[in-house]
């Protein structure tokens, strides 16, 4: 019925049941920023409704408002036709709205039952009402599981469950509290493609049973595959609604961004046969535990980008730490050019030309309370232009910072602003600029465009490609499969600390990658 429209959705002319959830004219301001400026949302009961938008478009704020974690400054919320005002998530739960967070909130050392009832324990009848009625809880969980197709063994410890099953527990937890409307925040971010399919099957079962589902995503293929209605949010306002049948991913993306989409594509090969970084047989293990790195070997050549695909927590962090010298190795060697750097301390490695863009810029790349020019020094405090002898060269560092701001389009009023005042994208551009301007031999780029907006993403991709043309050897670690396939010359899949596959990005598909990432196609000789 409704085709993509640039107007906020008019109250749809569907008669009968009132919308499960309706938001009208929601405005939410934070100091200095309007997170939501005009959000209108109408979710029909027993449908799957997707909310799509870029990072920072205001999706999360919207969800927090809907879940009672934040109060809107203006606008109204109605649930099943009745206007409500939530003061806390408890109010939202009482109104039948439940939230499944992107990062699971489960206690590993408790069983599924315990996790589900936590904070909402059914009590035994008087006088034993100080005891949890585990039997009743178990019965109810099994019932819910059967009804909605979310079967999970209620008595196993959560730590033994995989990601997909943990998500089911999260969903059960919300249903257990009587939710009839589920909010799922980026539910597929942590899943591999196969698990995504299962999740969507579950969601359809839930819908059939009358549950309304709101899910937030920026993965458009999934949105088109799974949802009944789509609302696009851009710069804090709902800008369009659509039916999946009526739009393509490209159209959706353009609605999200408001312009044409960039792509990470990099084809013409610049790979040489000169090895810049070589790791051989890297192993890290603690006694009694599964090794976190197990015999990892690869070379990166001058002008080459080697992509590492893998579900987070399969050894990527340790691999980076091993190359940077931040962790002790049990086995293996690291060579930079023709030097064995295995025993070198981190500083010497960085001085020798290893650049580093960490995955978590706030934790590993920035001094948030320091000005930009001091942040420019970080990681390069051993030589020009930042240092003269034992002293910091303020003039040199400031000059270099100004160059970075200009060349890498860091949007900032000046270089004395504290790093925390910049937006994520601009912080990231500063970091990329700082690392590339130092002209490293080898660059470790971990999730270089995570959490940055599309404009900054395109700029960062362009910079990485240009550096590759100029001979930089790059190790790219990313969770964004499109980015990996688009930028890499060669793809390695890492699973449980081992390289389990090597793929040619020209032929690799996200599905194939996903299979390797879950370890279902393990390569023997890796």
């Amino acid at each position, binding site marked *: 019925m409704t085709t993509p429209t640039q107007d906020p959705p008019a109250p749809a002319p569907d008669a009968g049941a009132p919308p499960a959830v309706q938001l009208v004219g929601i405005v939410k301001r934070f100091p200095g*920023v309007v997170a939501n400026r005009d959000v209108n949302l109408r979710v029909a009961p027993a449908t799957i409704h997707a909310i799509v938008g870029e990072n*920072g478009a205001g999706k999360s704020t919207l969800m927090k408002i809907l879940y009672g974690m934040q109060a809107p400054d203006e606008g109204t919320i109605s649930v099943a036709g009745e206007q409500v005002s939530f003061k806390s998530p408890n109010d939202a739960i009482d109104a039948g709205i439940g939230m499944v967070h992107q990062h699971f909130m489960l206690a590993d050392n408790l069983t599924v039952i315990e996790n589900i009832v936590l904070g909402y324990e059914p009590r035994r009848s008087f006088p034993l009402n100080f005891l949890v009625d585990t039997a009743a809880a178990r019965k109810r969980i099994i019932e819910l599981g059967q009804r909605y197709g979310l079967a999970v063994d209620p008595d196993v410890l959560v730590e033994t469950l995989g990601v997909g099953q943990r998500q089911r527990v999260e969903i059960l937890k919300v249903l257990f509290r009587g939710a009839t409307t589920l909010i799922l925040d980026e539910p597929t971010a942590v899943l591999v493609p196969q698990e995504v399919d299962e999740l969507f099957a579950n969601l359809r079962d839930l819908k059939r049973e009358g549950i309304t589902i709101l899910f937030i995503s920026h993965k458009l293929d999934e949105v088109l595959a799974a949802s009944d209605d789509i609302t696009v949010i*851009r710069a804090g306002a709902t800008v369009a609604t659509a039916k999946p049948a009526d739009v393509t991913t490209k159209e959706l993306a353009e609605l999200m961004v408001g312009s044409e989409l960039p792509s990470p594509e990099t084809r013409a090969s610049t790979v040489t046969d000169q090895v810049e970084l070589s790791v051989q047989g890297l192993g890290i293990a603690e006694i009694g535990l599964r090794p976190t790195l197990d015999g990892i070997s690869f070379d990166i050549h001058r002008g080459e980008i080697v992509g590492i695909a893998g579900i987070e927590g399969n050894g990527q962090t340790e691999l980076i730490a091993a190359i940077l010298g*931040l962790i002790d190795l049990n086995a293996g060697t690291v060579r930079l050019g023709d030097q064995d750097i295995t025993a070198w301390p*981190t500083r010497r490695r960085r001085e020798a030309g290893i650049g580093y863009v*960490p995955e978590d810029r706030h934790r590993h790349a920035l001094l948030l309370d320091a000005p930009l020019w001091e942040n420019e020094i970080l990681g390069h405090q051993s030589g020009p232009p930042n240092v003269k002898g034992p002293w910091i060269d303020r003039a040199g560092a400031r000059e270099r910072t100004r160059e970075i701001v200009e060349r890498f389009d860091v949007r900032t*009023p000046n270089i004395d*602003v*504290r790093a925390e*005042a910049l937006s994520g994208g601009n912080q990231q551009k500063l970091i990329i600029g700082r690392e590339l301007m130092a002209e490293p031999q080898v660059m470790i780029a971990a999730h270089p465009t995570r959490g940055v907006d599309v404009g900054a993403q395109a700029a960062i991709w362009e910079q990485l490609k240009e550096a590759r043309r100029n001979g930089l050897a790059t190790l790219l670690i990313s969770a964004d499969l499109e980015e990996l396939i688009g930028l890499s010359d060669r793809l390695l899949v890492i699973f449980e600390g081992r390289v389990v596959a090597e793929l040619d990005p020209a032929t690799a598909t996200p599905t194939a990658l996903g299979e390797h990432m879950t370890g279902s196609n393990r390569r023997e000789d890796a």
Partner: protein
Amino acid sequence: MIRRITMALAAPVLAIAFAMVVSAIMLALTDYSAGDVFHVIFTEGFDRTNLVTTVNRAAPYYISGVAVAIGFKMNLFNIGVEGQYKLAALFAAAAAAAVELPAPLHVLFTFAVAMLVGAAWASIPALLKAYRGVSEVISSIMLNATALGVGAFFIQRWLRAPASESPVLGTKTIPESGRLPTLNGVLGAVGIDVPDATRVQSYVLVAAVVGVAYYLLIWRSRYGFDLRATGSNAEAAAASGVNAKRMIITAMLLSGAAAGLIGLNNVMGPAARYTDVSVVTGLGFTGIAIALLGRNNPVGIAFAALLWAFMDAVQTPLSNADLPKQITAIMQGITVLSVVIAYEVVRRISARQELSGLRREVTAGGAGLPPADPPSPTGAGPEVAPA
């Protein structure tokens, strides 16, 4: 720029004002006249003798503040300054009394011994922290108690002057060449007249040198950058190549070395020897308050030390006027407590101003601005200074 300075001054000024108000209330409750007390503080407090006392007392406070601040800049809490300076003063005095050297060398030698001893005592919590993960707060505070025992043991056993020389338990007397001169002569020569009864101790110059060294080391040197980076974000610093263990150890040693100089004012000055009374107790703990008050800033610490010393010094005119001198200790305490709160309040206000400054810029950039995480400036507009 002016605005930034105003903001920096706002917190301590607010705190002091608040402390004065509370003190006035306390005085009123105890039937004293706040007017009389403040009258004495603001008149006699500023007479020349009292100001000399203030400066003399401020010097060890300053060095103590710097010693603590070196740790603070790296998120290390060297609460063991107290023990470090006492042991350092004892051994430095004993060493100074045991050697014969020409005057400037003798003084420098004594300083060196003091710094070495302070650093050595600080090395215990440093090594424990770096290699065993022991909290430096726990180990250094326990070492304060240990330092007292160790000092007493050494002085009883080996370092005491024979009873025939002095009935008071202490080291031998430091010869003239190892003592710090007064500055009265120099000041007199440049036309500043200081009453003969009060000495302007040249130890003040030691504090000044420590301050300059602290500034250059922490704010201008590579080492200082590493140290501040570690304090601000240890993980990012490690990724940038800073060796965390080495930083913990060196920062603690530097803090201890600075601490070593705290107790020498009297030992190398009027008393000319170490006794239980020639070294004031508590300077190390006061240093914590002063570093907090001065926000670890070399100039800020100087003001804090002077303020603290002034409130000490004004006790004499207060008791001469039969007014409760304890009121200044109350003011010191309240100032520290309220300054912590005031800094936080001012920090929030200035952060808000910075944001709204950036926001003005953003909104000026037009309506089609890209989406932004809160709080984030996105416009590339004209240069707008942050608050």
